[in-house]
């Protein structure tokens, strides 16, 4: 997408975003939209790694958790300024990713994916067990919402503006990056690592850079999440969430930032729809119990009929 086109689309989206809370009155829908925005933010980070560095990361939830906990603990326990805490959380996400990435990016393919999986789970266990700092399994309460002067981001509508705004900002930055010399190098590495290296691209450093960036973006999503819910515990940040993020990216179409947003929207909408619709269809069995099975089946069907993802529908190859 050309740069000017992208700015137009993003500005249009920003206008829609600003107007949404006046058009949509249902708190339930607004909350769902906030979740879509936060998940989309996390998924966009992952999409850079998977679509452009061509590496599967099965531990992305760890960075979401790092972002949430760093920001949460700094504000709830140490009274730090909210925005500063978010910035530190983003930096923490980047540093964690760099620290993890440095040793493992010399691996390739399956082993790299396994290493990310391992790290993701280890981070999760640290969060669960380091109760003194993180509050352990019962979590951390009292995370204050973000404020600008007297204006508090404490409602669904306001958080939608904040999360949505952050998403649009990241989409602009990431889109620029993808179109640039560095983005070209990333796409080249994805296409053929050997040829990219022969062209003078330091592939290991590039992959590390993308991974670090993804860690930062996902941590941002986590930090905003913490200030939205005002309460965090480790259970949403386990391996299952890492898997969910991968699903979002693949569903949307791997090498596409908008695909990640679309994938996040579809998954969140799917889960919420199942949750809402099932009690209407079947009064007998606890309807929530069907949710998991149906979700799995729908996912399988999606992959059988749309293996290149939703964005692949729009782009039929020549």
């Amino acid at each position: 997408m050309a740069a000017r086109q992208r700015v137009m689309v993003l500005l249009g989206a920003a206008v829609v975003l600003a107007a949404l809370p006046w058009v949509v009155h249902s708190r339930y829908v607004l909350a769902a939209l906030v979740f879509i925005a936060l998940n989309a933010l996390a998924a966009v980070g992952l999409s850079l790694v998977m679509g452009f560095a061509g590496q599967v990361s099965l531990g992305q939830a760890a960075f979401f958790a790092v972002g949430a906990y760093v920001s949460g603990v700094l504000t709830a326990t140490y009274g730090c300024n909210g925005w500063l805490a978010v910035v530190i959380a983003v930096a923490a996400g980047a540093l964690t990713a760099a620290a993890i990435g440095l040793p493992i990016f010399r691996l390739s393919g399956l082993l790299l994916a396994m290493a990310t999986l391992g790290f993701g789970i280890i981070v999760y266990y640290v969060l669960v067990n380091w109760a003194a700092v993180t509050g352990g399994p019962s979590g951390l309460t009292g995370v204050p919402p973000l404020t600008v002067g007297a204006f508090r981001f404490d409602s669904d509508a306001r958080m939608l503006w904040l999360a949505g705004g952050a998403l649009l900002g990241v989409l602009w930055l990431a889109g620029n990056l993808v179109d640039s010399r560095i983005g070209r190098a990333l796409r080249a590495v994805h296409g053929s690592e050997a040829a990219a290296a022969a062209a003078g691209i330091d592939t290991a450093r590039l992959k590390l850079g993308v991974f670090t960036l993804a860690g930062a973006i996902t941590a941002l999503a986590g930090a905003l999440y913490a200030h939205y819910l005002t309460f965090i515990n480790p259970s949403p940040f386990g391996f299952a969430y890492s898997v969910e993020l991968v699903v979002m990216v693949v569903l949307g179409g791997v090498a596409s930032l908008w695909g990640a947003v679309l994938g996040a929207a579809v998954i969140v909408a799917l889960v919420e729809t199942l949750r809402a619709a099932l009690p209407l269809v079947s009064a007998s069995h606890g309807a929530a119990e069907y949710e998991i099975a149906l979700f799995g089946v729908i996912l399988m069907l999606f992959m059988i009929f749309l293996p290149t993802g939703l964005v692949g529908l729009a782009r039929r190859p020549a």
Partner: protein
Amino acid sequence: MGEQLAQYLASGLVVGGIYALIGLGFVIVYGVTRIVNFAQGEFVMLGALGMVTLTARGYGVGTAFVVSLLAVATVGALLERVAVRPLRRAPALAVLILTIGASIALRGAALLSWGTDPLAVPAFSAGPPLVVGGAVVVRQGVWVLAVAASVFAALWWFFNRTYAGTAVRACAVNPRAASLMGIRVDRVSLLAWTLSGALGATAGAVIAPITYATYDMGLMLGLKGFVAAVLGGLASPPAAIAGGFALGVLESLAAGLVSSAYKDAVAFVVLIAVCLAQVAGWLPWRVAQES
């Protein structure tokens, strides 16, 4: 101290046998189809829960075991035919997500059928725990090892002494050459998935009396079995078996000597350690080497 170590070793070997069985399932499917089957852990879970239902209905343990095995093997076969085969030309990531979807669907189905409570399964034979070299081993633990050993022997015979097994090995090495030699690769793929279903069910059936059966037991077991397979290089059944036992013992030792809180994390720490060792060039063998 020696007795404690013997204890850790014994329980580590029992758990290791399970990891080895699960790891074998991964290796066989991956070897033939280059697919990592995320639903492998669910095969284990279904084997365990199948035992719950069948023994509750009054069937003997032996019958229940066989029926459970066949049922889950069929599930594996169905999965291959209905879901995996249509995607044989799809990108590898799509297939990965497909198996993830399958694992979620199976878990959901199990939740509907059996609920959330952990369910008990009778041990294969009654009697007090045995004492072996200072270690106390429950009878079922011995069953685990016995069944595992029989399975390994049967598989060895199958892969090395039968045409079908050799065909599987041929496909794992070079599917195109195998098909040129007249081997029906699609049939071998079906066989691989069926076999891995049976292996998973075996693991589940034999461990359930010790750990109880729940609808979500497959996730962690599957992951750890996968780590075991990866440790062994993902390409070779004997290496997966060795990886499984090594992982089981390491996990047991770490839980006993260091801290039991992080027990589940041990497998992944080991995984990372092995990955890093490979990067540093310290590993005398290559892990998960693919063409």
